[in-house]
């Protein structure tokens, strides 16, 4: 569904992504793990068209379409079904919860589908229905994350890019979010997940990639990587 080949991205003069290649297959959860500054977020920003690579290809193939992510404008990428849920939740603080969700459906033309998805999202996160008229900025961190996820879902994702959904959340809330991510996979959404919480990410992921200073150094199934000595040492805090 997503095919990235030899991607090179610069931010200013810094070579952030170096010759990165990977695939994400339909229906899978793929995890991209790595330390701070490894280039994970930059990868996602590039895939959603917010940053442009210097070289390489990235192709998104939902259904029969083919979208070139290195040249298509971000709104076209969104319409094709590649939805980026950026790091740090990034909700619209002074808009209501309802308005935030409506923004997610900005590119949608089918009003029936929008109300159907809205009902599904509110079923997934009942708290959002309770708070629908309140300012999004007054939600707790976990609720804001749910709102960010709900907003992304209203954009009808076929491939969802999640950037650190566990950032700054309490363990119980993180579990709730990960349950939802697993549920989304059951519903047929393909997911590319960035996490620092490597244990949880590998537990959930079908495939996983380890990124170090801009390159992918390891890849394999989530279970394999969780057993890999190097990964255990660097990211899972286990003894070698």
């Amino acid at each position, binding site marked *: 569904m997503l095919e990235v080949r030899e991607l090179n991205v610069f931010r200013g003069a810094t070579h952030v992504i170096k010759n990165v290649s990977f695939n994400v297959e339909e229906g899978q959860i793929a995890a991209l793990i790595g330390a701070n500054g490894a280039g994970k977020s930059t990868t996602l920003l590039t895939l*959603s068209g*917010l940053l442009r690579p210097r070289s390489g290809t990235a192709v998104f193939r939902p259904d029969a379409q083919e979208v070139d992510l290195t040249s298509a*404008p*971000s*709104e076209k990428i*969104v*319409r094709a079904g590649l*939805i*980026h*849920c*950026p790091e740090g939740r*990034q*909700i*619209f*603080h*002074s*808009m*209501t919860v*309802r*308005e935030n969700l*409506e*923004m*997610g459906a*900005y*590119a949608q033309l089918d*009003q029936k589908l929008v*109300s159907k998805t*809205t*009902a599904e999202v*509110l*079923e997934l996160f*009942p708290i959002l*229905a*309770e708070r*629908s*008229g309140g300012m999004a900025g007054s939600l707790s961190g976990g609720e804001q994350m749910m709102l960010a996820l709900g*907003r*992304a879902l209203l*954009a009808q994702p076929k491939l969802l890019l999640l950037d650190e959904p566990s950032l700054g959340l309490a363990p119980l809330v993180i579990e709730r979010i990960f349950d939802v991510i697993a549920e989304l996979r059951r519903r047929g959404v393909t997911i590319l997940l960035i996490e620092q919480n490597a244990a949880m990410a590998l537990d959930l992921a079908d495939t996983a990639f380890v990124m170090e200073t801009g390159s992918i150094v390891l890849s394999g199934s989530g279970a394999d990587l969780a057993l890999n000595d190097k990964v255990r040492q660097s990211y899972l805090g286990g003894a070698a």
Partner: protein
Amino acid sequence: MIPDASSTSVEAWSRPRAPQWSFIASLVIVCLGAVVVFTMTQWLDRYAVTLCALLLINAALAVSLTVSNGLSGLFSLGHPAFMTIGAYVAAILTFPATRKGTMLPDLPEWLAAIEAPMLPAVLLGGGVAGLVSLVVGYAVLRLKGHYLAVATLGLIIVVQGLVRNWDGLTRGGSGLSGLPRHVDIWWAYGYLVIVVALAWRIKYSSLGRAIMAVRENELAAECSGINSARLKILAFSVGAVLAGVGGALTAHLISVITPGTFSIVLAFNLVVMVVIGGAGSITGAVLAAAGITLLSESLRPVEEAANLYGLSQVVVAVCLIAVLYMRPSGLFGSGEPSIVKRIFGGRGQA
């Protein structure tokens, strides 16, 4: 498990609003306003009526700045530049053909022969201002915060410099006087109604919501499929077109236009109106513009009597400080008071 709350609120979300009622209500308000304007023309002297017309135009300009600055969060000071462009374009078009030959020798023949009526001249003035804003916006809207403010401030100076030195087209520093007085208070009132209606439509449409989303969080807006660069240019240009029209109307109201008519001081005053009213609030912009114009005009006799020139500027500045101290987000924040929203049919709680 589906809690009841979710299903009921989904219904509420998709329930259609009643647009007819608010349309009729707005129409009634517009007619009431027209009655007030008519009464003014009957009872007040000519000077006072012209002053009221200026007040209406100022209010409309503040609303147009609310569209380009308030909704989008841009901090542009470029309004006087676009007003100057609109005013000169319209003035050159409407200027009596008999006087054009001697006063504006560099005009191309077809322009020198034209003596356009007011409406097309005003529209062209707004149109040219809009075109300039597209070009300028493409370049300067990459800048943020004070960088954008400084760049648009520079735009005022560039436009003034051009106008001052392009003698053959603009008559330079001495300006164009004796413009036909095509504009009266009815033009000003019509302009205000159109600007407010347009701003209201934009604000409470998905377009306006998208522009406000860009103001709130550009990254999140782009992730929702919004082309933020295009929306910023759009907001900037809508403001510029309306400013161009406003400049053209002002010039034909006071029947004179010089390079200094719309100065940096005006940019400051308009921004103050938007800030006092609350960035993004249309009601706030109208009320603040009316209040400040009335205040500074009513202080003018006091200034003269007490020989305290500049008093009105001090008072306006003090008002600004007081409002910012007591209500940091302006009188109405970025929303509209609920009574106004009930009449004109805005949506949402914000």
